[in-house]
């Protein structure tokens, strides 16, 4: 089984629209939405949820004020500033380490499970899907990404699928690293803007750091041909394959409004280029 992660560094370059289009082209794949912060893939794939699993991220301190003797040991010991001077918990700052529970001389603090979100196992018109939702202002998105990836892998084994296609989050930090460790290939979707070029260099650095082969797709390549050339040159110099160049097309948004991917929605240059790119990715894999 092969795993492909679609990432970008910079947000909004077209990761999810491209992943959704791949759903029409991959005959035998499981889809995983690992952008658990702001998941959008389900808006196109329209999964029917078969199983919901509660997700507990970090633990959370729970202070029993009736027992508290106001010694302030917890306040003094918390490195996250998660307990104020009146010994109230600041939930958003608590990272669940348990130091407060340990130092409390009267056992007024217990660490409890935190309901941080849900992981889902679903079925779509393209095949099985693993996805999740992180509750508002919850932490541990990297941990939830790992849960989604484990679910996707299990699904692939159960249903005998030969591929997992992962829609990754933007950035280069914790959830991104959780989305790409151990995969066979990352597809980096970039665009010919100075910002995206800057971000491309950093995300390539991450792929390199974890020794994961990377290929690049230049989306909306025609909005700045000079910058597109720059990206191609940069990739060439660094031995990275550019597997696709996709033209800017308003059809992407139109298809999205109709809850379809671009391949289902209509034909054209963009769709042909995506098909061509998909074939190249299959070759690399």
């Amino acid at each position, binding site marked *: 089984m092969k795993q492909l992660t679609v990432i970008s560094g910079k947000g909004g370059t077209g990761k999810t629209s491209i992943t959704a289009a791949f759903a029409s082209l991959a005959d035998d794949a499981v889809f995983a939405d690992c952008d658990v*912060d702001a998941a959008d893939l389900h808006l196109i794939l329209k999964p029917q949820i078969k199983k919901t699993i509660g997700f507990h991220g970090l633990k959370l301190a729970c202070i029993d004020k009736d027992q508290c003797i106001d010694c302030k040991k917890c306040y003094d010991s918390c490195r996250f500033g998660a307990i104020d001077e009146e010994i109230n918990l600041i939930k958003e700052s608590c990272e669940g*380490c348990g130091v407060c529970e340990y130092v409390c001389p009267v056992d007024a603090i217990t660490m409890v499970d935190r309901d941080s979100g849900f992981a889902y196992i679903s079925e779509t018109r393209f095949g099985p899907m693993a996805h999740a939702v992180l509750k508002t202002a919850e932490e541990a998105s990297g941990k939830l990404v790992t849960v989604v990836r484990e679910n996707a892998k299990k699904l692939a084994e159960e249903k005998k699928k030969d591929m997992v296609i992962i829609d990754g989050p933007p950035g*280069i930090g914790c959830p991104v690293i959780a989305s790409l460790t151990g995969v066979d290939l990352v597809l980096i979707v970039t665009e010919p803007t100075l910002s995206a070029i*800057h971000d491309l260099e950093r995300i390539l650095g991450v792929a390199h750091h974890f020794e994961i082969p990377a290929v690049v797709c230049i989306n909306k390549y025609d909005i700045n041909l000079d910058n597109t050339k720059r990206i191609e040159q940069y990739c060439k110099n660094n031995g990275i394959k550019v597997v696709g160049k996709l033209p800017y097309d308003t059809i992407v948004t139109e298809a*999205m409004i109709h809850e379809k991917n671009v391949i289902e929605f209509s034909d054209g240059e963009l769709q042909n280029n995506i098909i061509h790119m998909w074939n190249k990715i299959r070759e690399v894999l």
Partner: protein
Amino acid sequence: MIISVASGKGGTGKTTVATNLALSIENVQFIDCDVEEPNANVFFNAEINEKEDVTVEIPKIDKEKCNYCGKCSEFCAYNALAVVPSDVLVFPELCHSCGGCELVCPQDAVNWKKKSVGRIEHGAANGVDFYHGLLNVGEIQAIPVIKALKKKVDKDKNVILDAPPGTSCPVIESVGCSDYCILVAEPTPFGLHDLKLMVEVVRHLYIPFGVIINRDGVGDKKVELYCQNEKIPVLMKIPHSEEIARLYSKGISFVNELPDWRDNFQNLFSRIQSEVNA
């Protein structure tokens, strides 16, 4: 006053709004909190004249004192320590620097060493006092870098804070303590879905907020309808324009080329100012 600019979804135009706003008003401090992929300086070209390493403390085990009892690894909520018969393995990238291992160690064998996770940089351009942070490539924890940046906030200035995408810890850390939050949304189904998530976040944090619709004209009217129904002010609409997209691709803030927009951003700022001071 601190105005943060956030979005939920990436690539909706946070940095576009934040930099154009900053270049339209006086007495500005700009802080780019997207430490994973900071882009604001593509538009400011500030000359960096100060760099500061951001470090976290990770445990260093004194093997002379350690008796391999395993209490530290038992306590660690992040699995950052593993005790084997004659060694203690430390996984720095998993450590949250809570200090628990030192507290529970009966042998007093836990010392601390500094580990760099990123850096913050300071400079100036066009009268803007500029800061951004850079998380080291391969590093997981953006929060310490964002925290270091937020220590630089100068409340006497008009602080514009460019937040990272998403809705979880780095975003909360960035927008927390803001006086106002501008949410930038694109008028598409993805844009609307992620805007709703971000609205939950700012409501949860009790931060007053309004929406700017970017690339108005692509997609549909559902973001606007949603704002109407939720009584969220639409502060500004930036049209879907080839000119603006072209300038963006070259790293040019459009207020520099389309001066009418400077007035629009000044009006936006006055509106936010009067709402915050009301």
